[in-house]
């Protein structure tokens, strides 16, 4: 399921384990020293992160076990309800048993499916396109500085604006996209892109791919830039076909860059909110987990249920990341050297 399957298992990928100290008490001492330095180096970052994130994250999880509402989040008057926000059995006055809670809510599972589907397709497309763009930008040609700046424009325009801009461009009556497609005869009547449930998701995908491919491209480009030139030279002299060079040499070397790019894109894609919120009517065909959660928290003021959704989203993302790391055989701890 993960995009890692697009990254061939590179047996010949050079693994660079951290410097290992094998023998000798002097070297053991050195290793201890290094670990001390490491803790010292880690400390400021961890303190900062704990300061900013610990309380908000803890609260969000804690609220999911309470009946907190907009009026009680600051005065502590909300009550503990256990797992009722997740799933709760209730008996109606007529004796009918009803299951309630986020986990048995059809809308929630629909949103989960929308989000996952969206994330897989968008991150997949962005990876392929981002790689192509990065390869182009990695080549030497005149004016590539300008091209590189131009590529970044989609990522640079605030989503608030680009979503509206695309909404306008995709409009069925005065949108330029329909105008162009009709002009070249691709379609014979305008498509209401964001309105119809068949095309709304496609519209979102188009805009998201347009907007975030630069992010992917730039990270992969950084990876490519760190591949030493002489490796290509060597391959060239050996007369290996460029496509083969790409798969056998380049790809394994830029795997780390792809890894982080995909992880952070997937994180954003799974949490996608503003684009969907601004571009499409929030109908069943496009609504995502974050949109539902936003609605509960910001519009309905139901912090219990909204936090439950956020917590579930957190768990789902964690699951995906772990799965991705496993399938991609990523050695996070770097222990296997």
């Amino acid at each position, binding site marked *: 399921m993960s995009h890692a399957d697009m990254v061939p298992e590179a047996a010949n990928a*050079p693994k*660079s384990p*951290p410097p290992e100290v094998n023998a000798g008490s002097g070297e053991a001492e050195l290793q201890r020293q*290094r670990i001390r*330095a*490491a803790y010292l*180096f*880690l400390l*400021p*970052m961890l303190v900062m*992160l704990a300061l*900013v*994130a610990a309380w*908000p*994250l*803890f*609260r969000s999880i804690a609220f999911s076990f309470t009946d907190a509402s907009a009026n009680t989040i600051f005065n502590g008057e909300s009550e503990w309800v256990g797992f009722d926000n997740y799933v709760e059995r209730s008996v109606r006055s007529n004796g009918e048993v009803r299951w309630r809670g986020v986990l048995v809510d059809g809308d929630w599972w629909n949103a989960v499916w929308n989000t996952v589907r969206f994330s897989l397709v968008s991150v997949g497309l962005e990876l392929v396109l981002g790689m192509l763009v990065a390869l182009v930008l990695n*080549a030497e*040609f005149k004016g590539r500085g300008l091209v590189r700046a131009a*590529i*970044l424009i989609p990522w*640079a*325009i*605030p989503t*608030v*604006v680009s979503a*509206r*801009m695309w909404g306008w461009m995709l409009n069925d009556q*005065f949108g*330029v996209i*329909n105008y162009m497609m009709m002009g070249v005869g691709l379609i014979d009547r305008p498509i209401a892109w964001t309105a119809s449930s068949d095309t709304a998701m496609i519209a979102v995908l188009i805009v998201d791919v347009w907007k975030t491919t*630069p*992010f992917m491209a*730039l*990270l992969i*480009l*950084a990876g490519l*830039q*760190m591949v030493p030139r002489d490796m290509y030279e060597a391959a060239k002299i050996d007369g290996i076909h460029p496509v083969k060079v790409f798969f056998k040499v380049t790809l394994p070397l830029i795997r*780390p860059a792809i890894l*982080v790019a995909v*992880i*952070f894109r997937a*994180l954003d894609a799974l*949490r996608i*909110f503003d684009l969907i919120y601004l571009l499409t009517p929030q109908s069943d065909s496009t609504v995502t*987990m*974050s949109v539902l*959660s936003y609605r509960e928290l*910001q519009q309905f003021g139901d912090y219990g249920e*909204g*936090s439950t959704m*956020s917590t579930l*989203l*957190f768990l789902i*993302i*964690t699951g995906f*990341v772990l799965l991705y790391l496993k399938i991609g055989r990523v050695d*996070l701890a*770097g222990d296997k050297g």
Partner: protein
Amino acid sequence: MQQVWWKTALFYAGVVLIVVIAVYPFYYAVITSLESGTALFTPNFLPEMITFQNYVNVLTQGAFVRSIGNSILIAGVTVCFALLLAVTASYALSRVRFRGRGLLLMTILGVSMFPQIAVLSGLYELVNLLGLYNTPWALVLSYTIFTLPFTVWVLTTFMRDLPIEIEEAAIVDGASPWVIITQVFLPLLWPALVTTGLLAFIGAWNEFLFALTFTISETQRTVPVAIALLSGASQQEIPWGSIMAASVIVTVPLIVLVLIFQRKIVAGLTAGGVKG
């Protein structure tokens, strides 16, 4: 060399295609920013009219110019801060072996796994508690929640891949970890540093929800909020021309930034043979 000729042509065709797709919507924004009234509602490829009124409106309305300054300051400080913390931390995470590294990396990533809206009320309390409400520091602080995990992860991954030999050589020379980071690794990491910095900068530059919640004076607003504050003559009217003009204006500093730093993006391992 006919083959080479068509290859080059194909390559440049690819470049042109990429640029057109990336830039066309921006071009569309530029056209729209030059129009007003009913002309906004008609599709076209060249501006039907040219008026700079939208630009005048944006630049004179409220504290728009000020908000660009605020955004540059906030995004700049956030990124410098995040890079500083991340460089040392990622050295520890990538080059020194200790127990629980994998778990630590996952925890750091976990911070970025909640939807923004879910952490909003908690951050609001924190900002108030620290007395940062309605100051740029409230945003610098809250933006680290998404910039720091990103910079740490990217730099850790890139640093992990640097060859072992150069570090060993430095250790033999008796270099301290700090010297290894600043003298040996940083020069090699320029592409990653600049790229990460740019991406994080843009992330902070475009953030809307925190900026809206944690600032209240017009003089403290950032760019996305200032754009959202542009309004038509009535509740329902959306001032397209002005919004597009504002978007064009705020994209320019970012393009300049890329042009300044783009040499660094490719200035990495120019001298080969470091790796493997």
